[in-house]
């Protein structure tokens, strides 16, 4: 029955992710069809575009780190990857299982080239805070512009700027933010804020038109004053002076952002002043770490595909795969990939359960149900940007994004992030050790995967931070921690 309705991609997904099949069988066919559709598009994107140019582009960007291949974003427009987080009412393609779709998209794209995938995915990371903060005043401007640009194949992209030169992991967690040494500061002035300082390692930073930027209003009280701003590239005093030469994932730029007296109007505060680590924005951490797990999984899967191709090719009259030890290694590697998938899907499904409810609420549906002409009227925009407008949206979001859900979401995200990243590194490293001094295209690919994989252990909070986050889990509720006493008192004295 399933076989008749599904494409080859659908069958593969059902085989690799039984949870998708379960949802399909349970009647969530529309949502799962969207999921399959996204993965099919990603496969085609890889086959026709990313894979044929990945190695050459990677090599070129080592010689010319400032070069950016805009064809990546134009091609992404063709498949509508730039609006995967944007609600359908605004012209986007956000599906019923938005977080799952994003995770599967990144897994698939990264199996081709994680640099190209990051260029596409980092844009959605920039878009996400505009959605999750409930900044509806900008939905009909910024998000609409992205959608319209996408349809015309004139990409308009966003980036998310959080890392600072002296604070990387610190700005990823509320507990550490309190003690972070920050360089960027926003000062309240009449009608808005003035930003001074730097952000660094910002993915897509040198291409984006819009930035969601987190900054403290008081560097001595960062947690209490952490605020998210919408910054536009053409704002006076804003520049991107430096692009890093990365070891891997090179097709996407990691740029430095420089703020020199950049004036940002009040209307460009996403959420409330000082609400930058509120659930709306914290959701981004949770929603981005899980997909890093899927990025790592895609890289690992790509490496495994190339390793398998190598193992099946005859060398000196023999195929490596005919040896038991190679087949056992392949089984281990496949185990790592499937373990990763289980972990990131746990996070993605939970994200959809929480996030789906939060976005599918009566207030937002009512607002999005209004004709665009009404929504964009200055009266409406002013209301949405006013204290009362924000309070209304915030109340709705807080109702759905409960603290215990956010904690669980962060735990699953962090677990997926560090486990998937470590597995990806281990898989790539092992594949290279098994191939040894080999002259083959497959080895070159796996070397690229090895370089690419390392970044997944670092970004979105180092794996060490993410391990500590997982410790927030309430072990005593989840595990039986009572120690049984099998011996009578005195025996173990």
């Amino acid at each position, binding site marked *: 029955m399933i076989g008749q309705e599904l494409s080859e991609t659908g069958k593969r997904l059902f085989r690799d992710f039984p949870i998708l099949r379960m949802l399909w069988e349970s009647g969530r066919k529309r949502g799962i069809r969207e999921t399959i559709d996204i993965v099919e598009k990603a496969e085609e994107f890889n086959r026709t575009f990313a894979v044929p140019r990945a190695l050459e582009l990677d090599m070129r960007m080592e010689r010319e780190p400032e070069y950016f291949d805009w064809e990546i974003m134009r091609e992404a427009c063709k498949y509508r990857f730039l609006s995967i987080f944007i609600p359908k009412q605004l012209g986007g393609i956000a599906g019923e299982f938005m977080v799952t779709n994003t995770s599967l998209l990144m897994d698939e794209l990264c199996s081709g080239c994680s640099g190209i995938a990051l260029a596409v995915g980092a844009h959605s990371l920039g878009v996400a805070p505009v959605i999750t903060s409930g900044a509806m005043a900008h939905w009909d401007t910024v998000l609409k512009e992205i959608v319209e640009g996408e349809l015309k194949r004139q990409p308009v992209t966003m980036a998310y700027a959080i890392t600072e030169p002296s604070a990387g992991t610190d700005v990823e967690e509320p507990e550490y933010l309190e003690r972070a040494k920050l360089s960027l500061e926003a000062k309240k002035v009449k009608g808005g804020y003035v930003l001074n300082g730097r952000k660094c390692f910002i993915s897509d930073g040198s291409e984006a038109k819009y930035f969601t930027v987190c900054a403290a209003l008081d560097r001595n009280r960062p947690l209490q004053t952490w605020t998210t701003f919408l910054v536009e590239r053409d704002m006076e005093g804003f520049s991107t002076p430096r692009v890093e030469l990365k*070891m891997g994932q090179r097709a996407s730029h990691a740029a430095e952002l420089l703020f020199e007296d950049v004036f940002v109007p009040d209307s460009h505060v996403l959420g409330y002043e000082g609400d930058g680590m509120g659930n709306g924005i914290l959701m981004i951490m949770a929603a981005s770490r899980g997909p890093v797990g899927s990025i790592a999984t895609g890289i690992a899967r790509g490496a495994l595909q190339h390793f398998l191709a190598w193992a099946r090719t005859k060398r000196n009259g023999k195929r490596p795969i005919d040896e038991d030890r190679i087949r056992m290694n392949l089984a281990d590697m496949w185990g790592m990939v499937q373990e990763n998938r289980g972990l990131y899907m746990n996070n993605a499904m939970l994200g959809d359960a929480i996030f789906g409810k939060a976005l599918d609420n009566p207030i937002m549906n009512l607002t999005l149900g209004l004709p665009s002409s009404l929504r964009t009227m200055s009266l409406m925009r002013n209301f949405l940007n006013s204290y009362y407008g924000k309070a209304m949206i915030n109340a709705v979001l807080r109702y759905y994004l409960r603290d215990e859900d956010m904690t669980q979401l962060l735990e699953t995200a962090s677990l997926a992030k560090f486990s998937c990243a470590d597995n990806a590194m281990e898989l790539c490293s092992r594949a290279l050790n098994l191939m040894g*001094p080999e*002259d083959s295209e497959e080895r070159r690919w796996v070397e690229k995967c090895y370089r690419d994989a390392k970044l997944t252990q670092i970004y979105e909070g180092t794996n060490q931070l993410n391990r500590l986050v997982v410790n927030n889990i309430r072990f005593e509720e989840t595990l039986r921690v009572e120690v049984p006493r099998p011996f009578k008192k005195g025996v173990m004295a």
Partner: protein
Amino acid sequence: MIGEPWAKESKQYAVLRSNALNFASAELAPVADDLENTVDSPLLWKAVERAGEMGMLAALVPEQLGGEGVDLYSLCVALEESAVECAGFAAALLFHNAALLSMGYVERKDLVEEFTKGRPLCTVATAGEVSLGEGRLQGRAPFVFNVLEGTVALLFASSGDGRTAAYVRTGTEGVETHIDPYPLGWRVSNFATLEMKGAEPVYVLDKSGKEALEATERTLYLGLAAIANGIVRKSFQKAYDYARQRYQAGKIIIEHQAMRLMLARMLCAMEEGRAIIRRACGIEELGPAVIAWRGAVANSYGAHRDAVQIHGGYGYMRDYGMERLMRDAKYCQMFPRPEEEQLLRLLDMAERGA
């Protein structure tokens, strides 16, 4: 100073280590990044010339043939110190010395003299499948470093008598060179596949071939172990310095237990590396050399991975000098043979009592 070996070496090796470190600091450290970006650069040949003046170009060849006649541990010391600043350069020296070692066995002073001029360097090819028949070479030898026009490569070829060794010169008839434009590590010199299409060897090691081959392999394994250990030392130095400066979660990161554990593991790796290399250099057999290589490169993998991690985002960027260590270290683990193949061979050797 932290990172110095606990186990002290004899004065002879301590002096050698000090001289080699001075060479690395003066000649390699300032140009290591440039060497990585341009193969066959004048900077490389200047460093090679200085290495030649210090006796590092024919270290293992007997003095009567024009070499230095030093023991293998001395070469390992020189390679480890060079690798602290530039593992690619150390690898280039290793392949050159390993190739020349065999010439010592055949007492070809003329060849040694020619090949110790410094440019081009010699090299060794351990992988692929090359055969020798009727005085001609056929087949492919991948993963060959130091390749320039006129490079002399030592190939391990199969022949009617088993495995033998032959020297072949690039740029001559029947030798095709395919340069890999984009190797992961050791980017100081060209990295290529050599294709033999009826090439005539410069010289073939016949009766002494087996002994020479084993000596060459032993040199490669222990040299790579020493280079890996140099990478561990650099990883530790950089990570330790960075950890004392970088602030995170309310304190400098060296005060975090996770960072301290990583650094402690690097210390263990350094000490273990030195001990197993020293021990294996004292045993004239291939088995202990393989075991030392395996231990040192595995330690190195853990150390550079953690060192990059301690640096966070900075560790991943070219300008901060960590990512090169990670790329170079991986080739120490992949060369000269895949690890599992070598392990199986090790057991075979042990069963034969070799």
